[in-house]
């Protein structure tokens, strides 16, 4: 998935110690116990049900499985998923 441009950007980010999530447009994911998942910089929601949420990001599809999942907030930049989270994984 990484292009030549991405590699250059990564190099610059490393060199200048810039935060990588901004330069490389990566999602920033914060997991609060198994209660809440906070995804910053997502690219849209692909699937949503109470046991499975799939969110598109730059690095692939983020799959969240669990039970009683609800979307607390959703705006262009961020999603907050609450419920009982069992698993978080990336699918390429």
């Amino acid at each position, binding site marked *: 998935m990484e292009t030549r441009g991405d590699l250059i950007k990564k190099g610059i980010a490393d060199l200048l110690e810039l935060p990588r999530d901004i330069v490389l447009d990566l999602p920033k994911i914060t997991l609060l116990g198994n209660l809440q998942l906070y995804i910053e910089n997502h690219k*849209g*929601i*692909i*699937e*949503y*049900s*109470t046991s499975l949420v799939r969110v598109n990001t730059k690095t692939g599809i983020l799959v969240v499985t669990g039970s009683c*999942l*609800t*979307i*607390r*907030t*959703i*705006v*262009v930049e961020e999603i907050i998923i609450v419920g009982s989270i069992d698993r978080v994984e990336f699918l390429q």
Partner: protein
Amino acid sequence: MLAVRIWNYLKGYVIIKVEGINLERFINLAITNNIYFWDIERVNFTTLKARVSLKGYKHLRSIRKRINCMVSILEKRGCPFLLHRIFKRKALVAGGITAVLIMYFLTSFVWVVEVQGNERIPGERIVRELKAFGLKPGAFKPFIDTREVETKLLIEMDQLVWVGINILGTRAVVDIVERTEAPPLIDKSVPCNIVAKKDGIINNIYVYQGQAAVKSGDTIKVGQVLINGVVEEPGKPIRVVHAMGRVEARTWYQLTEEQNLRLVTRERTGQMQRGVFIRVGGNTFRFSRKKCAFQNYDTETETRRLIEWRNITAPVELIIEKYYEVIVEEEFLPVAAAVDRAVKKTAQRLTGMLPQEVEITDRRVKYIETENQTIRVDVIFETLEDIGLEERININHRED
């Protein structure tokens, strides 16, 4: 998070139900159109429940057209809807506004006139006088010139030295200071005797004018003539003068004090709690939530009544109790210390009782122990004081 929720509530939001096949696409489209969604809940495969702001809901229509789905409102929440519902009930709103206006109207009157600081003059008399100057229950506040009323009352009532009127809400609080009356002085041209105002033994007698009727060492009784205004000298006509002089006598005061040997001190820690009660009729209701948490405390109770008009009192009272936390300490006093303490107390009481310029020359202390670990202390104070009092001579009587 709470702030956001309050904000949403103020702005108003709706709970919607979305039915369709590709609901994820619906969400994605909505957020790219800057529609704010929250609390999204999947009900089943084809249904979704979510909350959306009012503004967002209006924009949803364009999305709804692009995707095949049905949006229906389940519930409307927030201020705008609440206000709308309230304003539909015109009579209620009108009633509310009228109530506020009536309240405002009624608060522009004085309802209670309170007099503070009077000792000898009955409060009702002052209230009656104030009524004549326009300060009475039912008076319109803007028409009352408190300064003017103060001056008028001062002129009208001689016994007053100072008057201050404060209008606090619907109460007019009248603070007064009474004149302390000087003892009646007899004019120097009027003949008089000097008589004893107390029992005692004469210590010294200085006669400026008149004739001494007693000498030092004499025992005297109340009302006895000390310096005679009628001067009789052999070979001269009887003269009647204004007797003047200073009669110093030893007088005694006996005071009794009981002192418990078990001394309990209650010292306030500075911690305070308040309890608010409302008494309606005979029932008292607690208004504040908590009970007093202190183990030892002193209670001060303050009762506030609503307006009193004519003989009608509102059956509602507000009772405010203040609890001051205290530290209770117990100690046993030795007898000598207890006597000392009692004597000090009596001395304090005595200085409160005595007129000025009185010298305490001696004291005798007797005590007996009574039951319940108390002692009874009798203290006899010997004092030196001027016991002279001017008394007018009735001339007519003399001429008989």
